[in-house]
């Protein structure tokens, strides 16, 4: 891939990749790493893409795979992320921290499904393809996750519009 294309895709999709990674790893340091790895894969990928949308879905699928791989790693299973440090030297997330915490109470599979559906706008079928799952399983997680998230948000004093 040309550098100009890479630069453009970084501008367009970094946040999306970061968001998908956060569903799994739940700390910015590891999500940062995954973003780097994913874009390195994109940069060195020799295949071609049909459209920007194709690139986006490729990146998100790559982020999902990379995140799962990290979660399986020996290092990750026997270490704690920075954000879990008992005495943080600083706090840089601010008011949305609590909202992020709420989201992180969802189990990872449900979190990524909700993220892909509501934030990225993918269908259950497309999400199933990205997460190596079945459409039925995705639908089930969506239904269950929506209820769980609504309950968690409600506990956090946030009302969610359930129309979507």
């Amino acid at each position, binding site marked *: 891939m040309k550098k100009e294309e890479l630069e453009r895709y970084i501008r367009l999709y970094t946040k999306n990749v970061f968001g998908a990674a956060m569903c799994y790893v739940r700390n910015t340091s590891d999500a940062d790493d995954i973003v780097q790895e994913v874009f*390195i894969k994109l940069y060195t990928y020799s295949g071609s893409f049909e459209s920007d949308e194709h690139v986006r879905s490729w990146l998100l699928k790559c982020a999902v795979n990379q995140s799962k791989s990290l979660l399986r790693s020996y290092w990750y299973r026997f*270490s704690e992320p920075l954000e879990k440090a008992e005495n943080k030297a600083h706090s840089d997330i601010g008011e949305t921290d609590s909202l992020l915490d709420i989201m992180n109470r969802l189990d990872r599979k449900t979190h990524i499904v*909700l993220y892909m559906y509501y934030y990225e706008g993918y269908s259950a079928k497309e999400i199933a393809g990205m997460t190596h799952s079945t459409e039925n399983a995705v639908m089930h997680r969506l239904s269950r996750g929506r209820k769980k998230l609504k309950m968690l948000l409600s506990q956090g004093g946030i009302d969610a*519009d359930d129309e979507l």
Partner: protein
Amino acid sequence: MMNYREIFEAALSGAYSSASCSDSGRLFDIVTERAKAPAKKSTALKRNVIIAVVIAAAVLICGGFAVFGVIFYTDSTSDPYFINFSAAANSAAPVKIEHYYSISFPEGFYPDSTQRMYCTDTLYSVSYTDGNDGHITFAQYAINSFSIGYEKDTFEIVNNFADKTIDLHIIDGKIMTRLWTDGNYIYEVTAAKELFGLIELKKLHEVYPEVHDLVYYWG
């Protein structure tokens, strides 16, 4: 009332703005630079490469050709910020050595964490330990790997400070190490991670000018 997309957006925005990847220019630089390096090897391969390099280093040391040394040793007590790095860097002034050299600090002076860097012309690594409750992680493995046969004090550190994490990366034929851990010293950890997440160490000067004196090379 927010819809779900807005909720995800709000939850993500805070974390994203604090992540280093939110700087797209910098991310582009890192990605293009790292892409020049050989493909990342699997953990098993990394482990094998580490062991091979350690054995080679041990042979060199035994043969009297050592270029192996502690570059710095740092940790913190009451003030978990950059100043500790600087202080440690000043304390642990680099000395060119011909064999393994341990920089000592008064016992109990740095109870919470340690950092060490070992260097040859083809290898360097860093370990970070923190004195909280004891997870034995990859760091111990790495430290043990780097300490086969000639670094007993490292084992003592492992025993005393069992909570640590480390991540090894092989880039451009050299072992680069990035490290972070839980514990009390986020800034230290972040700085260290930034340092070793980048290929060119001089970039540290741009990002973390306060701590660049930490890093010394020889060999």
